[in-house]
């Protein structure tokens, strides 16, 4: 049963991701991106990382995607011009994509994955919280300082020069 659902989500994610790249209409691409994000969240659920899945939905769909849509709508005329994008320099792009693909395959094949069957954790949030506050405190704080910097920078940029 799980397999069928898993493959369903995999195919959904990949199809949607392809649509993001191939769709000529930016808004449609954004909607496809929404489905992609959902699929990725589903992947996290299959990895028993429900908290990460929730975070994925909250931040990527609730935040980033909305800002994207906002940006698309505000930067174009709404009435006359249809919003679209075209691909340029396909050859170079194909080369880079192929290189990345080969690199990824190589990495997946040669990474020593931890293959241990474990039980579903009962309380993921609790352990995530504990780990963030103990073992990974420094990265956590560094990340928050970085985000704070970004926040201040955005505020400075957005402020009108008077």
């Amino acid at each position: 049963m799980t397999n069928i659902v898993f493959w369903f989500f995999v195919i959904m994610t990949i199809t949607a991701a392809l649509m993001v790249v191939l769709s000529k209409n930016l808004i449609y691409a954004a909607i496809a991106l929404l489905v992609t994000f959902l699929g990725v969240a589903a992947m996290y659920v299959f990895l028993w990382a429900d908290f990460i899945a929730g975070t994925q939905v909250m931040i990527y769909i609730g935040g980033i995607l909305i800002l994207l849509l906002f940006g698309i709508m505000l930067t174009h005329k709404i009435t006359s011009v249809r919003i679209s994008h075209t691909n340029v320099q396909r050859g170079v792009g194909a080369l880079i994509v192929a290189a990345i693909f080969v690199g990824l395959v190589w990495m997946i094949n040669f990474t020593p994955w931890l293959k241990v069957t474990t039980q579903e954790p009962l309380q993921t949030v609790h352990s995530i919280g504990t780990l963030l506050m103990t073992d990974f405190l420094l990265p956590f704080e560094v990340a928050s300082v970085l985000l704070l910097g970004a926040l201040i920078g955005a505020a400075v940029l957005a402020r009108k020069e008077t």
Partner: protein
Amino acid sequence: MTIDNIIQWFQSWFPVNVMVLFITSVLIAAVVIFAIMAVNALVAVYAERKISAFMQDRVGPMGQGPGLHAGKWGLLQTIADTIKLILKEDIIPKAADKKLFIIAPFIIFLGAFIALAAMPFGPYLIASDMNIGIFYILAVSSFGVIGIILAAWSSDNKWSLYGGMRSAAQIISYEIPAALSLVSVLLLTSTLSMQGIIQSQAGTVWGFLPNWNIFNNPFSFLAFFIYFIAGVAETNRTPFDIPEAESELVAGFHTEYSGMRWAFFFLSEYGNMLVVCGLTVVAFLGGWQSPIAGVMEGAWWGLFWFLTKLTATIFIMIWFRWTFPRLRVDQLMNVAWKILLPIALFNLFGVAIWTLLVG
């Protein structure tokens, strides 16, 4: 009554493929949730009409008998409305982006619909009691914004676009104080599960008050108000109804919608009210806990208490709507960023210290 329970129950009777069972039980849960939303909309619309009428010295819908009019005291008014909406012509403007125009109401609806999956209506009545229940609800309610933006953009109408822009800005802003005030609750309950949050509110505090989070300490008392105000803002209701603001934006993001699609906006507005009020009840008002510890407890009493509290909070929302004028868009942002957010942050800090010191 989670989905897992239904599967087990089925399995004890019909030992068939687990996949079939899973799909059946999900469908059953979905139908139940849809029914709850529909009934809620029916009742709430009727209540809204009647309450507003009584507040305004009117009588509201007053049919004189079934058949011709809307039933005694207008009881059938909402049903008549629904039938009217279903029968109405479905107009799609020529310049609209047809595909998005069609799916947008359903995306908004989806936000409220799947959020209700984690809403505990009673001690055993929850579609799925997830580990991250409250977080899940906060996360999926953002679907609503996307639906609103799409509806606004695809209508190809300037008023709609204004409404969509305002709505997106508003909901994103108010999510922050709402989430922060919920986090202060999580500090007290130390769980994200909806049932867990409710269970941690059992018992009494100071001898007589129920141990609900709102009474737990002064900071969580404040957090309740922050969350409720932010919640009203997230449902786009007066005094925060600037995305639809009929005196300014005609009807905001749903200006171009008619018939059934418009009814879906309506349904999801009331569904969102249900989510926000449900979350308020769960997080602050003890969920299905009885107000007097040890009295009138049990599965059905739990449902009763939950619905009572839900009705009370929904009533307050309706009350707001018919009492207050509307804020301006920049004032709305000021309220979120300059008033609610600092208070919520301070509050979070306060709750943290309180939990450390008092326990």
